[in-house]
């Protein structure tokens, strides 16, 4: 099959995306497919028309590629693509909307309050900060609403640190949320085709706990998979992750990040298109389940589907879709 791998783009996670895509392209070649990498830009549609792929593998991360924009375009072109559809992408990328959905479905997620910059500029939102702070307590976490990576995520230990944390978060997005900080174990559950894979736990070194840049480096954070949890604990975490995946309408694959605090697991966010680099957690979890990277890519590929009611305008005659495993 001919597969176009979409990568790069202009999001802040461009670098991660290029690394994910390089691995995917290798795996596709290994599987005997013809892979064509496309760095997403102005010429995306013309490139797709020229390549005429049977399936598009979306290896984009962050706004633009993970928020439904590219998916919308692929639906218009009627070409099958991997990962979640437009609505799920948009929901996962918007942390605030995702938290509302989770709450409505009875899924645990830390308390929060969300603002856009206009609320501060025009509606006097600053007046409410004191109430929010006393409701959420300190320390609290300030995050841009729609970044996939950790960029702009700040930890404010005291109230006089909140304004600059807000200014930092507003550098990444026009909307930010303040979230209750939950101390606990950091877990990630990868979900493949609706089935949870073994749980990964990130155990940062003590001195790196608040140093995200150090933790980003290979070898600085220790990951264990499967995480050392009692059987019922694992089951509970996986169940919450799977329900979150379903609630947000994910398909193909996704990674659910949770924190296991004193009150049990709470969902922090869902990555609709998780990283597939050498150091990414999704491939690590797959491997723990006995799924080698190439197999993983193949399974994700098989989950690509023609979206209902669309017909490919790329090719005069759409080729047959691969059968599922």
């Amino acid at each position, binding site marked *: 099959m001919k597969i176009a791998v979409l*990568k*790069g783009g*202009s999001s*802040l996670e*461009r670098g*991660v995306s290029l690394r994910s895509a*390089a691995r995917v*392209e*290798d*795996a596709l070649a290994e599987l005997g497919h013809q892979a064509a990498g496309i760095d997403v830009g102005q010429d995306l549609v013309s490139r797709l028309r020229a390549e005429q792929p049977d399936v598009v593998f979306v290896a984009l991360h962050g706004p633009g590629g993970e928020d439904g924009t590219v998916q919308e375009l692929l639906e218009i072109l009627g070409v099958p693509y991997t990962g979640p559809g437009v609505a799920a992408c948009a929901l996962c990328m918007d942390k605030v909307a995702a938290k509302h959905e989770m709450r409505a479905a009875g899924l645990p997620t830390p308390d929060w309050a969300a603002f856009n910059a206009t609320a*501060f500029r025009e509606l*006097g939102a*600053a*007046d409410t*900060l*004191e109430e929010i702070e006393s409701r959420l307590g300190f320390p609290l*976490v300030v995050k841009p609403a729609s970044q996939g*990576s*950790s*960029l*702009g*995520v*700040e*930890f*404010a*230990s*005291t*109230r*006089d*640190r*909140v*304004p*600059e944390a*807000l*200014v*930092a*978060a*507003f*550098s*990444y997005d026009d909307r930010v949320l303040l979230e209750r900080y939950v101390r606990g174990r950091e877990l*990630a559950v990868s979900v493949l085709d609706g089935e949870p894979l073994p749980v990964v736990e*990130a155990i940062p070194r003590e001195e790196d706990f*608040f*140093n*995200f*840049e*150090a*933790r*980003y*480096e290979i*070898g600085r954070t220790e990951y264990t998979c499967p995480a050392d949890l009692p059987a019922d604990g694992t089951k509970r975490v996986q169940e919450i992750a799977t329900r979150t995946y379903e609630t947000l309408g994910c398909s193909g694959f996704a990674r659910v*990040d949770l924190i296991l605090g004193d009150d049990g697991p709470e969902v922090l966010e869902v990555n609709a298109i998780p*990283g597939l680099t*050498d*150091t990414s*957690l999704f491939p*690590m979890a797959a*491997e723990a389940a006995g799924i080698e*990277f*190439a197999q993983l890519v193949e399974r994700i590929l098989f989950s690509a589907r023609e979206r209902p009611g669309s017909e490919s305008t790329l090719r005069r005659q759409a080729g047959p879709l691969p059968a599922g495993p």
Partner: protein
Amino acid sequence: MSESGRQPDRAAGRQGAPRRRRPHSTSRDLERYADLFAKRTQVMRSSAMRDLMAITARPEVISLAGGLPDTSTFPADSFAAQMTRIAQESSAEALQYGPTEGFEETKACIVEVMEAEGMAPDPEDLIVTTGGQQAIDLITKTLVDPGDPVICEAPTYPGALPTFCSYEADIHQVGTDEDGMRIDELEEQLGALARAGRRPKFIYSVPSFQNPAGVTLSEERRRRLVELAREHEVVVVEDNPYGLLRYDGDPQPTLYSLDGGDYVLYLGTFSKILSPGIRIGWVAAPPPVLEKIGLGKQAADLCTSTLTQYFVREYFGEGRWREYVDDLVGIYRERRDLMLHALERHFPEQAQWTRPEGGLFVWATLPDYIDTTDLLAKALREEVAFVPGRAAYVDGRGAASMRLNFSASPEEELREGVRRIGSVVSEQVALYETITREHVQAPSEDDRGGGADVVPMPKRE
């Protein structure tokens, strides 16, 4: 920060051609590598900033982040003629290995350049290196054992820090003001180290039109620095890539000329007066030091490119190199003036910046509640880039500053780039003021806790 901010996207360049890469590694392989990595690799630049910088290379971004000279001003026909002459007259030699210390002819050109700045080195005291960057690397390799103290300016050349770190130097940064390195702080630092029974292996300084701060060490401080080096028997590494690019004011004597070459090791380069692409720099040092540096160079790359050394020889043979430097000075002076003017016009009153008399950079500092690494993300949405100040420090300082380059962009881009950055800065200043006006900062006892109160939170790819 990479000085090659405008490399074409290598991935894009490969498109279409069938690629042969070794099979992918599994995550288990990666863990195996993690144990293999040397300790020094842990100090390499963070991925967060690397990911941000990856975007600055996109063609639609106006990048004031590079440190590039404008090579478009070099006459292409003269380049062609020189290379043709080399091919016709010295093909075999130019394609061959050369001596580790460089050709005598190259050294003669170096002597000319150093004489233009009032120095008179003995060619025996020179070694030709693969750019100034290799000179920094070789000197550090020659002098520094793991844990040895090294002193540099705060902020310092961002490209020197990874080099110092990779030899596991213990880096101490001494503050700067508009007259360059604060010598009083340097004395304190030397005193504190001496009391602890330690002596820095060297003091690294870019005394003229410093990268990144754009400031120049005053003559008085230059004399004092050289004295201190003698008193404490400490080596000064003078990195002087921009000395000839002076746009106003009087030339300052180099540390090397003040000292006579005893305690000062001098680093020069053709990168900013001819071309960074030819990768030719040099070190002037006393023979015993030079000998060790030569051994280090043999281990690193045997010799500097013979082909480009031939080019330098041909180019200097035409005798017009000073004219070209004068042309560059004219072009860069206009761009500097334009940038300073644009800063006045577009940056809010809360911002400050340096007014360099030469070189390639302006250093701007914003109110301390703005972190320029975060601000870069916002700037990139407006398709403009700069270097966040943190890159010039090892200790997390510099968060509110940024380095702006004025040499590499044509006028219209320069003006528009500064306008866009000014607009994102103004937005953040206004936002902060809106938030804090109602958000009274009443410090409680709890506020007196540990230092790093606002820290980025971890997250995984």
